[in-house]
């Protein structure tokens, strides 16, 4: 157990730009939720009436008319979705099994202000600054403490995707 706090002058840190925390790729998420299965694209374009019905049933905003979905070889569905919070944008997937139950939810990308620190290019600027800092900070700052992102909008998104599945995908 060892720790120390480093206070880094902001001049050595590039302005925080909107960057992404990448967790899984789409293919990795498919295999994490439905290991060994194959995926057939089955996108759905919602008509005006369907958007209204979905809004009414799910009580969640419908941001796009195109639903990015895949049918799995085991009879499940895999849906890619994106939601927006006040300071962030979250891209995530939901796996729904053949019985309509949620098999898994995985966040693929989380874009928010400070996440730029994960980016190797951001660190590249850091290394050039002074040798002492470069030595102390070799590696990446992969963790953030203090930013509690609310996931209320993911809850809404999940409700909308489940309603989309119940109303259209499972009947397709």
């Amino acid at each position, binding site marked *: *157990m*060892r*720790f*120390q*706090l*480093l*206070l*880094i*002058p*902001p001049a050595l*840190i590039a302005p925080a730009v909107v960057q992404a*925390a990448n*967790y*899984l790729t789409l293919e*990795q998420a498919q*295999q*994490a939720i439905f*290991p060994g299965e194959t995926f057939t694209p089955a996108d759905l374009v919602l008509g005006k009436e369907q958007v209204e019905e979905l809004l009414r049933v799910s009580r969640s905003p419908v941001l796009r008319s195109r639903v990015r979905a895949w049918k799995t070889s085991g009879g499940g569905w895999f849906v890619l979705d994106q939601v927006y919070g006040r300071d962030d944008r*979250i891209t*995530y997937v939901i796996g729904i099994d053949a019985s309509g139950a949620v098999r898994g*939810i*995985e*966040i693929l990308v*989380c874009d928010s202000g*400070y996440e730029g*620190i994960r980016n190797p290019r951001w660190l590249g600027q850091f290394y050039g600054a002074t040798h*002492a*800092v470069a030595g*102390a*900070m070799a*590696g*990446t*700052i*992969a*963790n*953030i*403490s*203090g*930013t*509690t*992102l*609310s*996931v*209320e909008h*993911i*809850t809404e998104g*999940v409700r909308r995707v489940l309603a989309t599945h119940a109303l259209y995908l499972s009947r397709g």
Partner: protein
Amino acid sequence: MYSPRTPCISRADSTERARPLLGTTVSIRLEGLPRACANDAIDCGFAAVECVQRLMSFHEDASDVSRANRDALARPVQVHPQTYAVLRQAQAIAEESAGVFDICVAGRLVEWGILPPPRAAGPPDPGASWRDIELGPEYTLRFHRPLWIDLGGIAKGYAVDRAIEAIAPAGAWQCVVNAGGDLRVAGRATERVLLDAERDPGDAVAVLEIENLGVASSSGLRHRRRHGDRAAGPHVHGRTGSVIGARSFVSVIAPTCVVADALTKVVMAQRRRALPVLERHGATAYWHSQRLGWRAIGGAAPLSTEQMQ
């Protein structure tokens, strides 16, 4: 449950996944395991977090917390050993902090609109405190006055610890579980953690380097609100019932995340006076305000604050 496979250690393999849990984003990163092994282990970690969420959510009617809030005044309520362990820890810290940390502040949080009122539970007595909770035999608890408990100030840290424990048998080289900023690191490498305090553009950026420790941070800054003519926020002083941390940011480093999580509230309320509680748990705190900058409190573990110019 997870069954360990043939160990295959290599530094290059890193797998990180995130899920919406505990009202925030919970991420788990493992290094040194092939992806399939890592996925199995991460699933075990998420399952441990989901279990804590199911048991200790204030929002879910079937949770131990909701059942206690409904029935523990009338009769002893039996809870899961994990819930009981968190209650014991919460009560110990309440006692050590002379009630500054108190899981009975839920009534105030409901009044301020931060938590929804629990269903089918009678109104709490505003004078009730942690002293009115009795932990009995066989994982039972009982209330001696009408009160509502909320484990929101401690359960996230506990969930992180359980996830670390669930992942350990997989033998990852390095493991980090982060539940919305309450995190724990286990393994051989040093992790860097940005302490995301609000700061002016010219202020230093705080980066913590840790090995095998838990870290939790709390701040009321981004959640400040008004309730009538009083300030309100997610952190409440257990004795005075007033909001704490409205202008400060606190990070606590401790051997476990559950302790770090709970002690952030004690430090927010008491600053340097929290030192005896911190020392008792081998914890150290970093306190920040925009006016005063960073201050270190305690240091049972070696402490080295560097100002690099």
